[in-house]
């Protein structure tokens, strides 16, 4: 009964605290404009300080009750509590001083007022942080100012800047928000409800009466259950502050449903479109498999390199605005060794290359063997035979090879079979036989061979 009353009074603290703020500010303003020789005015001022003292005493008492109900930690309350009490004491002293009508100095009293206002600000700020969250001051600022102040999401961005292959669901996605929201009460020293969340095994085990994580069943795991139940329920966690966001609870649910493995890489959930979207939204992490072109890390090309290419009769086009990957096309009718040598400078940048109907010979094919990042090669209608094709053997990224109108025969299939990335092969109007194609197609069903209609 008595505790209930204290709790009730404690809950009035956020209401009552505004009273002394109003009193003290009004008193100071009054003091500023007052005639120091007027006795009545001086009495009014001293009365103002008395009201401030009484109301702040009430507020701090209520605050003490509120702080005692266990929803806050000492570390959180400390500064707020003691600066509040200091404020009460200062107000009391000022009132005593004033009511005794002791001699005063204008500078001293101004200085005193500044100190009081600083105390008020500090107390108010820490109080506000507790009730409204630590970023209550900045969260509703216009975006432009926010950006200037430095993004709040820097921590999240450190995740998005890392390679997605190195990210783990628990360590990188879940642990940070559990640490933020739960671990202040559930740690090595402070195991509220018998739960220590800082150690993974203990987190799984749970508290006194509940299982922390029941692998594969989110609703039987108190870690999840407690954060999604009705917020009115007294078992709801966290008891104060801002609850977990919808996205955070979804990630938690998904991870537990999937078996709550400590070392679950986030890439193992590429197939799940919902989670994909969620990660992109919440962490700016795109777990979709990247096309080969986007995985390349290339140096930018200089203008000279490109002019050189153009002079050697290659027309170029960039395939991305982020990466200097090139689509090259030979424009002349007769390609020479000099032309081909220009490829060496940009050998990593070329991913698509067309040298069509340009008298490319077997010997000249050697210049293509260094183009490791080629994915598409169109060298149809040239005088190429099996001898030239051998130079392509090491092009592991090549997925599309167009050799129609060349002189290659079935012997080249051996080279094709060694090309790891090959998916499409165009061999119309070559000397390969139907039998050879059929045999190759049976052996490598994933490679599409086109020989015409």
């Amino acid at each position, binding site marked *: 009964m008595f505790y209930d009353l204290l709790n009730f009074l404690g809950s009035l603290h956020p209401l009552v605290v505004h009273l002394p703020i109003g009193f003290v500010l009004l008193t100071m303003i009054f003091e500023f404009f007052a005639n120091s020789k007027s006795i009545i005015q001086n009495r009014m001022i001293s009365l103002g300080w008395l009201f401030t003292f009484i109301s702040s005493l009430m507020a701090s008492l209520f605050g003490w009750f509120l702080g005692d109900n266990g929803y806050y930690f000492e570390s959180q309350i400390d500064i707020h509590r003691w600066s509040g009490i200091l404020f009460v004491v200062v107000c009391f002293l000022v009132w005593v001083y004033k009511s005794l009508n002791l001699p005063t100095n204008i500078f001293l009293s101004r200085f005193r007022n500044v100190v009081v206002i600083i105390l008020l600000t500090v107390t108010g700020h820490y109080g506000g942080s507790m009730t409204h969250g630590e970023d209550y001051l900045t969260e509703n600022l216009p975006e432009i100012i926010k950006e200037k102040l430095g993004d709040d999401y820097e921590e999240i961005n450190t995740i998005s800047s890392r390679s997605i292959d190195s990210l783990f669901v628990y360590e990188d996605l879940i642990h940070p928000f559990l640490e933020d929201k739960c671990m202040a009460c559930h740690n090595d020293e402070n195991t509220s409800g018998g739960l220590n969340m800082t150690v993974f095994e203990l987190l799984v085990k749970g508290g006194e009466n509940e299982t922390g994580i029941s692998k594969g069943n989110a609703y039987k795991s108190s870690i999840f259950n407690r954060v999604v139940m009705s917020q009115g329920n007294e078992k709801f966690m966290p008891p104060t502050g801002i609850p977990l966001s919808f996205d955070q609870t979804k990630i938690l649910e998904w991870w537990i449903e999937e078996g709550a493995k400590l070392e679950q890489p986030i890439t193992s959930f590429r197939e799940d479109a919902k989670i994909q979207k969620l990660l992109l939204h919440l962490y700016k992490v795109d777990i979709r498999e990247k*096309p080969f072109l986007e995985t390349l890390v290339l140096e*930018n090309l200089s203008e000279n390199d490109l002019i050189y290419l153009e002079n050697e009769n290659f*027309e170029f*086009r960039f395939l991305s605005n982020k990466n200097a990957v090139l689509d090259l096309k030979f424009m002349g009718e007769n390609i020479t060794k000099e032309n081909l040598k220009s490829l060496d400078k940009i050998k990593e940048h070329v991913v698509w290359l067309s040298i069509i109907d340009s008298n490319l010979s077997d010997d000249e094919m050697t210049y293509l063997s260094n183009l490791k990042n080629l994915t598409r090669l169109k060298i149809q209608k040239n005088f190429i035979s099996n001898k030239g094709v051998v130079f392509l053997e090491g092009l592991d990224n090549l997925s599309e090879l*167009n050799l129609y109108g060349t002189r290659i025969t079935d012997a080249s299939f051996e080279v094709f079979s060694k090309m790891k990335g090959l998916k499409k092969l165009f061999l119309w109007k070559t000397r390969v036989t139907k039998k050879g194609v059929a045999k190759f197609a049976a052996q490598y069903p994933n490679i599409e061979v*086109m020989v015409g209609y």
Partner: protein
Amino acid sequence: MNCNHDHSDKNYSRRDFLTKTSLGLGALSLGSLMSPTDAYGNSNFLNLLDSNKQKLPHFAPKAKRVIYLFQSGAPSQLDLFDYKPKLNEMFGQEVPKSIIGEQRLTGMSAGQNSFPMAGSLFNFKQHGNSGAWMSDLMPHTAKIVDELCFIKSMHTDAINHDPAMTLIQTGSQLPGRPSIGSWLSYGLGSDNKNLPEFVVLVTKEKYGQPLYSRLWGNGFLPSEHQGVQFRAGKDAVLYLDNPPGVSSNVREEQLKSLNKLQKIQHADIGDPEILARMSQYEMAFRMQTSVPEVMDFSDEPEYIFDLYGKDSKTPGTFAANCLMARKLAEKDVKFIQLYHQGWDMHGGLPKSIGAQSRDVDQATAGLIKDLKQRGLLEDTLVIWGGEFGRTNYSQGLLKPDNYGRDHHPRCFTIFMAGAGIKKGITLGATDEFGYNITERPVHVHDFQATLMHLLGIDHEKLTFKFQGRRYRLTDVSGNVVNEILS
């Protein structure tokens, strides 16, 4: 674009100065800092005015070029692709009120007392491994359905030909916007030096709904981005040849002198359209040799003509234009637009659709096969379709062997093949009466957004500022249809 006409006595207006110094030069230097592709690519002063262009392509493209086989007049999806046995079952009965609801009909059939359902008189079968439904009107195309992606749930806003065609070609029902090909030419520039980026081929001696050159117009984009029509016959491109008695050398001299004059003019009034005109003169001069080359079919072997059908030997037919489209694709023309008129069958549909389908069937299939064997289908997108669909009820009197179909914007079918498109799939569906869409509607703007996406363009980012605001092909709508992307 003639920004200086109201103050031609001044070299630069305040506005010109600000535009050209801040956006022009500023964008140039900023662009080269931000992206590897910029400063060198297409250092045409004009293009730099719009800094959005600096970042193209926005991502790696799947397609390098597009062949759009536009079927003008709106082919009947109910007789070609969208199989509705219910309509045959209920042949002659009224379309249920709940199906049409309060939807608007054209003035041509809205006054009819009766809306009798007309089941197709043509046989439908499933084809290929994908089991796509097609009627026997297009037997050659039916053989390659496993290469195709059908969208049966296309819909449009317009109910008549002109606005519907303008919408699907330019993104707006009102004339004046740039055509798809113009946007691509503007955004991606040229892949070949001797031919335009955007070529238009119209089947000759076909009639029906009129075609207007504004369908391939550049709208407010600089005029070098307009489609260039290649015609069958002697003058493939009008006024391209030198006048009688003027030799090529003389012509070159003339153009050089003209160029000097135009440069002086441009330095004086700074109208960017002068630059456009200069680049068109140059292109025309180069086309004097490149166009006859591409129009010449004498190198094509007999079996290629067989592939496209016997019409392909007659210049100006759809088949010959398909063959030409392949040749242009080989030369890296970016956007090749074919138009084939005559699909607008309000009456006597069963009689006329046979010949109309024969015009396009073998050539379409032949083109896709030919592109495929040359490896061109890997980076070429082929599109076949009209501007809207046709009604499930008969316009005019329904007879057991005769019916007509009115305009129907609520659903129609198109198909695509090639670069970046899933093969052998069908997206979307209509109700059992073939009237409303029941599954995955695809608006014309969604289709355009997808087309741009395949070419490496984010349709929301390629914009052009005109009359105070930025325009894009899809204007304020459009979503990429991810389901059909491979």
